[in-house]
């Protein structure tokens, strides 16, 4: 009993504990979201990838050069989940590109803001490694930053915005699978 009282003295008050736990949970939730996101792309399950966005989602892949200068052109420019769906469908059903293995690695997640309505702004670094079947090396296909806005749909976290801003301005040949 006395021991418990002693421990309690060293704990923060309940409200602070609660908010820190919540932040931790949110951070963990985004981290596992990104792990699932990376896995869907690595395994080229683009229908599952599509489902990680809200109906009105914005998904853009653009160069650091364009982003810094306020130029809107993106390698991929989707203004809705319908366009994301078309992208996924076209890549899976119609596009011709050499077979490849990809690893999307996401790290350094930071939650920038979390509003009471469930909207979360965050960012993370990403790296995409690509292996072509006739080369021994995995090449650094893309390196950049995700600028994200998450929203909850039916309690589940979904991407309302993901801007993938890549630093390697010279894209190696072609970007076939999204980032």
């Amino acid at each position: 009993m006395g021991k418990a009282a002693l421990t309690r003295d060293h704990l923060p008050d309940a409200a602070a504990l609660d908010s820190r736990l919540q932040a931790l949970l949110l951070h963990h939730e985004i981290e596992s979201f990104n792990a699932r996101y990376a896995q869907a792309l690595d395994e080229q399950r683009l229908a599952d990838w599509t489902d990680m966005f809200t109906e009105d989602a914005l998904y853009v892949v653009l160069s650091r050069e364009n982003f810094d200068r306020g130029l809107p052109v993106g390698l991929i420019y989707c203004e809705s989940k319908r366009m994301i769906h078309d992208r996924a469908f076209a890549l899976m059903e119609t596009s011709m590109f050499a077979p490849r293995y990809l690893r999307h690695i996401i790290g350094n997640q930071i939650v920038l803001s979390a509003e009471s309505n469930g909207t979360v702004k965050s960012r993370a670094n990403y790296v995409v490694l690509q292996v072509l079947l006739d080369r021994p090396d995995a090449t650094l296909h893309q390196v950049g930053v995700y600028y994200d806005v998450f929203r909850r749909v039916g309690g589940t976290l979904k991407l309302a915005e993901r801007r993938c801003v890549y630093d390697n301005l010279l894209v190696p040949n072609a970007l076939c699978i999204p980032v």
Partner: protein
Amino acid sequence: MAWQRIASLSEIAVDAVLGVDVDGSRVALYRLANEVFATAGICTHAMALLSDGFVEDGNIECPLHQSQFDIRSGKALCAPATEDLRTYAVKLDGDEILIDMEQQAEFTQAIPKPMPDRQAARPVTDTQTISATNSDPELALMKRYVWPTEGLTRIPDWVYTDQTIYEREVEKIFHGRTWNYVALECEVPNPGDFIRSNVGPTPVVVVRAADCSINVFENRCSHRAAEFCRELSGNTKEFVCPYHQWSYDLHGNLAGIPFRRGVNGKGGMPADFNAAQHGLRRLNVTSHRGVVFASYVQDMEPLQDYLGPEVLKEFEATFDGRKPRLLGYYRHTLPGNWKLYHENLKDPYHATLLHTFLVTFGLLVAGNRSLMLADATGRHGVMASAKSERKSISSDAKKEMRAYRDGMTLAEPRFMDFIEEFDSPWSVTMATIWPNLIIQREMNTLGVRQIVPTGPHEFIMKWTMFGFEGDDDEMTRHRLRQGNLMGPAGFLGLEDNEAIKFVQDGMRHVPGRQHLVKLDPAVAAGTSDSLISEASIRAMYRHWRAEMGL
């Protein structure tokens, strides 16, 4: 000493010429009545095959520029060739023709050699008498760069894979008599605005000076060659080389040299150093409808003449007088020869076959109204097509294209809408402007693509996407949405990049062969109204060979 059989008499008609390869050298074999002669197989002027030429009165006439040579002595008889052909000794053994690559023809050896050892008798300084199979670099060159005898329907791999050919292209084409795209004016709207660009592989700076003129000069310091401008774009009053602070004004003039007169009366530049002679290397510049071109040749013809009337018309259909507005860039490398990109856009055949996206959704089919235009020189082209209504696709065309699927629709079809804005019968045009520009008008998504070659096996492509001043927000977003078709992640663009890489892979892994470009024999080389045509590719190579002297 080395007589070898190379042909039989029955293979050559009287007064005819036959090309044969001997020890890797090209040899032309002639039959005049019952005498047989042999000379080097390649004209001493440009690199044409004499076996494609004409035998008349004991002379051979080159098929390319009509130089003539005496078949017996190899003597050059009429311009443009001035250098004689090397001759080889030949003799008959029954029906067999034998050649000795180390001996010249009898005619030139009328005086019998006193010494049995011909090696010793040979004047070693005379390159004509050095063995054709080894040390003479000219002959080594001839051996490798021989165009296939079939003519323009074949393209040999060395056109795309050879370092020497690539270097010659930089000299003869990119630094030669061409207008090279370097910028859009809207990228440098104000005095002091600059961008880095390239002419061929050569880095240049494009800058607007205080007098509003646009200047283009090499990005290479005239002191120790430093590539001084490192920013992709910016605004400046002068360029200062970071290495020793030499400074240049916006016209490229050398304006300042630190410690020019030395320190304490010691060191410094020679007294007679003339800064006016040490500016940056400036290029000739022209601009039309907001598109800026540069040339290493100072007396270039006007851009309008360079393009020719038909290509100029298409250029002006896209750059229709509205002011372009910069929307952003794509940049990518492509592991293929730079000419393959031109060929991809002079190859309407691939459009419905590679790009199944278009076909799956009924957006383009082989029966669409289309044109593959080549200018009179063959160097420029425009691939044009008109969007058709889905219902008008014939069942024949559908059968041809495996990808066509009735009833397949996009979830967001409006991204493929074509908003009429141009005075043109075409909804899509791809203009290939020799040597480094593609003007893309893919319905409403507009861009210029600049080819920057970096070697025979790779180039960089810089896409500058634009709209027009006066576009409202929705129009800009429509252009951006439609941009999903193009660029290195575009539904069509990524496929072209992959296909071009595959072509280069094929040549690298199975080298030394030829491409086949035979489609549409009704048009030898030039404009065709059929999509199933390679006539524009042939026209481009007719021009390329002339420019390269090959």
